[in-house]
């Protein structure tokens, strides 16, 4: 037995097996704004799920008798010019925003992840073609592509989130390709190759776990971005087809009447702003917790 092992045992101080996830959570929890954001996002999602059941009225219910009323006991947030109950409109907006925000991000991510992984893993001509496509997407004013796609596909929930998704994938593709490339050239992957690992194994056990943190951060910034895009469609009248309510629709119509009926603007605008802020706080907190840089958009 060599000197080394004999004496070594003594001074190896045992360390508690603190999992990385636990550590990351602790870092996140220290950031109060991020936690507040997460709570808000949580409520937002829950409301998004149960909203339509608790909504006092349907978004199609019009009541001209009580149009343009200020906040009251029967209509907590007032009513609009068609007598829609503002609270119900907001609850449905949250539902639709949830679907569009998460749906669009999912579409963008799936496209981006597949192309990014292909580009990063295959390299060569595949990489070249995909990257030219990414360049093209960056040069194409996303908002206008979005408008055209909405015109092509329609103004329902599904067409809108698909359209937004199609305009947003290039960022994910570039991020994932960059991460894969930086890892692929590194010693860790070289070590895995020298162990005899297959490409599949390396992708699954070496690349994926090491890029997931950055990807989550990027996704958390992607959701509010998709919501802004959605609202932007409403501004030129190409958002969700009325009477379906959305933050964009409510803010745009509210703005038109802001002198007369300010509550029509204030409630949706403030709610929307807080929600976006909450997502950004969460993203920011995740970024610090995972200690990633450059993963945000």
């Amino acid at each position: 037995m060599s000197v080394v092992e004999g004496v070594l045992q003594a001074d190896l101080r045992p360390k508690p097996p603190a999992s990385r996830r636990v550590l990351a959570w602790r870092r996140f929890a220290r950031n109060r704004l991020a936690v507040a954001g997460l709570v808000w996002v949580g409520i937002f999602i829950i409301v998004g799920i149960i909203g339509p059941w608790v909504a006092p009225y349907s978004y199609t219910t019009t009541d001209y008798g009580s149009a343009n009323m200020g906040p009251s006991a029967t209509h907590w947030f007032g009513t609009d010019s068609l007598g829609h109950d503002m609270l119900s409109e907001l609850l449905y907006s949250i539902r639709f925003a949830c679907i569009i925000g998460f749906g669009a991000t999912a579409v963008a991510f799936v496209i981006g992840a597949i192309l990014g992984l292909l580009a990063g893993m295959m390299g060569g001509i595949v990489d070249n073609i995909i990257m030219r496509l990414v360049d093209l997407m960056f040069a194409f004013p996303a908002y206008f592509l979005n408008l055209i796609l909405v015109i092509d596909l329609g103004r329902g929930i599904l067409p809108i989130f698909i359209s937004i998704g199609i305009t947003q994938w290039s960022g994910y593709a570039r991020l994932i390709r960059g991460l894969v490339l930086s890892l692929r050239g590194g010693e860790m992957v070289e070590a895995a190759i020298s162990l005899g690992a297959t490409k599949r194994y390396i992708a699954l056990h070496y690349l994926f776990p090491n890029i997931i943190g950055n990807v989550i951060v990027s996704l958390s910034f992607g959701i509010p971005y998709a919501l802004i895009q959605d609202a932007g469609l409403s501004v030129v009248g190409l958002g969700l087809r009325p009477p379906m309510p959305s933050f964009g629709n409510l803010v745009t119509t509210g703005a038109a009447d802001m002198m007369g009926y300010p509550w029509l603007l204030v409630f949706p605008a403030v709610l929307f702003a807080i929600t976006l802020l909450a997502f950004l706080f969460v993203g920011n907190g995740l970024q610090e917790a995972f200690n990633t840089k450059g993963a945000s958009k």
Partner: protein
Amino acid sequence: MSDILLDVRDLTTHFRRPDGLVYAVNGVSFQVRRGETLGIVGESGSGKSVSVLSILGLIGENGKVVAGTAEFEGVDLLKLNRHEMRAVRGREIGIVFQDPMTSLNPIKRVGQQVMEVMLVHRLCSKQEAWDRAVALLEEVGIADPHRRMKNYPFELSGGMRQRVMIAIALACQPKLLIADEPTTALDVTVQMQVLSVLREAQVNRQMSTIMITHDLGVATNLCDRVIVMYGGQVMESAPVEEFVRHSAHPYSRALKSSILEIGSRGRKIAPIPGNPPVMIEPPRGCPFADRCLLVTDRCRDEIPDLRIIAQEHVVACHRAEEVLEHVAQ
């Protein structure tokens, strides 16, 4: 004029980390004489760099000197305000850092960076600074200095950049030059070049030098006196000749035998077991106790004081005499 240029006493420096304090330097004392080259040797985490850089307040925002004095020509550097400290940095004390690749501003021309230190201290006009910078580059062995003045750091090799760093450190004729692992990041042949530049500069300019290094070979070949640090404390300090012959600390001796020299082949090696300590708790007992072959209970409980065991030779070990006796046999 006192013979002592820099007198550091009981220096204690802590670092704040998210998970607690790091006790980086724990009551370190040393002196630098005028004109001498002092080598401070230790492994990573020994506190060798921190103990010197904290005197100048260059240890970042998480580091804090919590106790001690550092008298430079009779003035305690640790009591200076920001403004007074700036007048010392670069002017009275020049510093060369480890990695020449990252220590120079990547987007400023080399000449500008050498001139800046003279201009900041208002030593001369811009024109004169240019001429002096050219002369400095020449002094540190950079060929074609006029052309090099206009180069950016990325256009120079590692060795050249380290020469530029030395030129910056020497520019204001400092009384003390601090070299923090100046050769570690360089290729072996270039290491030799840089060491020879440092030795020449030291001889020609009659300044004092502190050479911080992990390499006992560098310290013993370059320096007049050697200090060995471990776990944020001084283990031993002696003139180099005394040190190479009669080092009395078990760690110093272990360190010496850890160095592979040409001709070591076939020699039975006895590595120091264990790992260097991570100083996350206040020191209790001798920091080397865990790895020491001569350890006793006393070593674990009582921090050994620095004791004089020969002229100018101090050592912090309860069993130093036994070590010396053992060697003598």
